[in-house]
């Protein structure tokens, strides 16, 4: 094994990163500073089997909204049901992309068990994107719209 002073690799930096990995229960960490970049990973199995098992049945979700699942700028569905973007057929949408919304403003209606549930905005700002289409089925936690 190489002696201490002639090591090519900066073991100390890697060790620090591994400690962070363990402490934060991560499976992978990458770090880059100046001309140095390090990436370490552990426990590849978990990721692997999950990918494999998912192949046959990806839980329903729109490709477009999965990236935003944990985004704080997103209004998510508080319930399971069918979403309506307007109060009745032919009416204007509650909200259009580009509109400003206030907190507590009704942004969509979700129908569940024959009941219409007005869904209020939890955010304030400009609607950048509406992820759902009229009469689409939504599940709990599904992104409805992105607000800046």
């Amino acid at each position, binding site marked *: 094994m190489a002696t201490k002073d002639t090591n090519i690799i900066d073991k100390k930096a890697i060790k620090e990163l591994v400690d962070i990995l363990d402490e934060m229960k991560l499976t992978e960490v990458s770090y880059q500073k100046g001309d140095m970049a390090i990436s370490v990973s552990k426990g590849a*199995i*978990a990721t692997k089997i*999950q990918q494999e098992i998912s192949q046959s049945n990806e839980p329903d979700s729109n490709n477009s909204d999965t990236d935003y699942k944990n985004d704080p700028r997103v209004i998510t569905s508080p*319930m399971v049901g069918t979403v309506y973007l307007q109060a009745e057929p032919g009416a204007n949408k509650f909200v259009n992309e580009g509109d400003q919304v206030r907190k507590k403003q009704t942004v969509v209606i979700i129908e*569940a068990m024959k009941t219409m549930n007005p869904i209020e905005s939890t955010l304030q700002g400009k609607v950048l994107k509406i992820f759902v289409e009229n009469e689409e089925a939504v*599940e709990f936690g*599904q992104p409805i719209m992105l607000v800046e």
Partner: protein
Amino acid sequence: MFKKILIANRGEIAVRINRACQELGVATVAVYSQADSESMHVRIADESVCIGPNQVNKSYLNTHALIAACEITGAEAIHPGYGFLSENASFAKMVSDHGLTFIGPKYEHIEKMGDKIQAKKIMQKLGVPTIPGSEGKIENLSDALKIGNEIGFPILLKAAAGGGGRGMKVINSEKEMNENFSIVRQEALSFFGNDDVYIEKFIDAPRHIEVQVIGDAFGNFVHLHERDCSVQRRNQKVIEEATAPGISPEDKAQLFETVISAIKEMGYLGLGTLEFLYHKGKFYFMEMNTRLQVEHPITEMITRIDLVREQISVAAGEPLSFDQSKINPLGHSIECRINAEDPQTFKPSAGTINLFHPPAGNGVRFDTFIYSGYKVPHYYDNLLAKLIVTGRDREHAIRRALRSLDEIIIEGTVTNIELHKKILSSEEFKKGSVSIKWLEENISSLT
């Protein structure tokens, strides 16, 4: 037959039900809490719907979300599994009111059997032997003392709304009755929202014997013999076996006759289990579970009947695929409940299963939902898997269980596998016929 079924459960039982649906050619909808998005039951279903956050009362017990999930997916029926909403009569009614089918008994039967006092009265009337006790709820301490003296202490003071071993206390004397009557009532109120209590004769160290039944809408009622679930810890079943050792065929036959006559009289639909205490040659009805049981596979193995398949068929209005003459138990089957729990403290253990390799081979079935890399959430119960072994006789089944336990690899969480090995290796278990107190009294001396 239904075209699509929503499975309102998680874990191994959701996987079990999903498999039965697949084999029936029925599409499945899994529901899940946010903590369960990576769970096996979600991954193997045809569709899945997230119904709420991690807490069970906002997800798996969220009746509105479940009905709405049927609406958006077009599921025609709901299978509740066990636990959660499986014995919730008002949910069963709600399901039916929405034009959907609840895969279980009629809600009236769920309701009646859910009230332990009423259940006992009904069974008594139907000729089923019950434990001597108060006729209905006890109004006050003086009544309690009077009935206690009539039956003879020790007696059991039980919450009418209790179950699963919770909400009961042994009372050995008038003095203990004086001290405990209001405490038990108060506990009943805070745990179950109902302070009705009743009294039963306390039977010391009985065995837990239960009878599996099923009925269809065409007047067919069949029993699938009995299970012995006496190996318990804190009233939780640990090991079950079918059939029960050391009980004469004549005594069993008489019990089955009584049971069949009762459910026929009730017009019971679907799967049900009548639980009995067995002591000195006598059976005493305890309660009836109006749902699929955790331990149903041991009955499947010795009878070769797929209970979940039959349960679904019957709910779909089809007749049973067999009659009593086809039920001839063969061999002996044992189930070990593999829990994620600390072997010393019995505390539930969560964590990521780094590595999972199941036991296998002739006569071995391993019902589970874990896989290598699965993170066991800590929000739900700690049952990881059920090892079900079937052998030509009891001795063979025990040996098969032991070699199978040796084969299991579950890395990343502690389990009670070693406890199972100790139980199955103990001379007393091997002899058969241990009581429901045996494990608890001997757990520290098992080696």
